[in-house]
């Protein structure tokens, strides 16, 4: 990400005001590299089949 754009977004975040704020509990996303390879395979097959 462009550092200037990141700075702009961080500034915008800092301006927000909480209202009865709820804090989520987000689960970490773990990707198996095999999933990526499988996905690339599927896309290549799709492309080959038009």
């Amino acid at each position, binding site marked *: 990400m462009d550092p200037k754009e990141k700075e702009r977004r961080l500034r915008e975040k800092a301006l927000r005001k*909480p209202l*009865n704020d*709820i804090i989520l509990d*987000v689960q*970490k996303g773990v990707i198996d590299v095999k999933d990526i390879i499988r996905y690339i395979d599927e896309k290549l097959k799709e492309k080959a089949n038009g």
Partner: protein
Amino acid sequence: MAKSCASAVLDAALQYLEDNADRISVCEGQPTTYEHATSTKGVATGKKLAMSSTPTFTGPAPGDGGGSSRKTAVDAEPTITVDASGNGDHVALCKSGTTVLLYVTTCTLQALTLGNTVTIPTWDIEIGTPT
């Protein structure tokens, strides 16, 4: 036989997310399309309860899984205004220009109320070492 993957390969995937994600949303139910993730619940097929256009990332960096695993941290997204009441249980990252749903993860179900705010704390996306 051992398998391996250079960190640069995994970093490229994570960097793609960092360079392209410009929306982060909290959804009720799993979003499987861009419209699900970005249209407010009650509008067409929308599942979005809250959305911010300021996602930022820190990384890529070595993953917690060891080996060549890599991760990027999605920075905290504080006090996003809730656009529709509902039960938030998914978080999505999207690219607005080409309307692509990039990444979806789950969160512990939380009831959100229209007009209040919701904070998404920092969380990681990790690509594991090949097994």
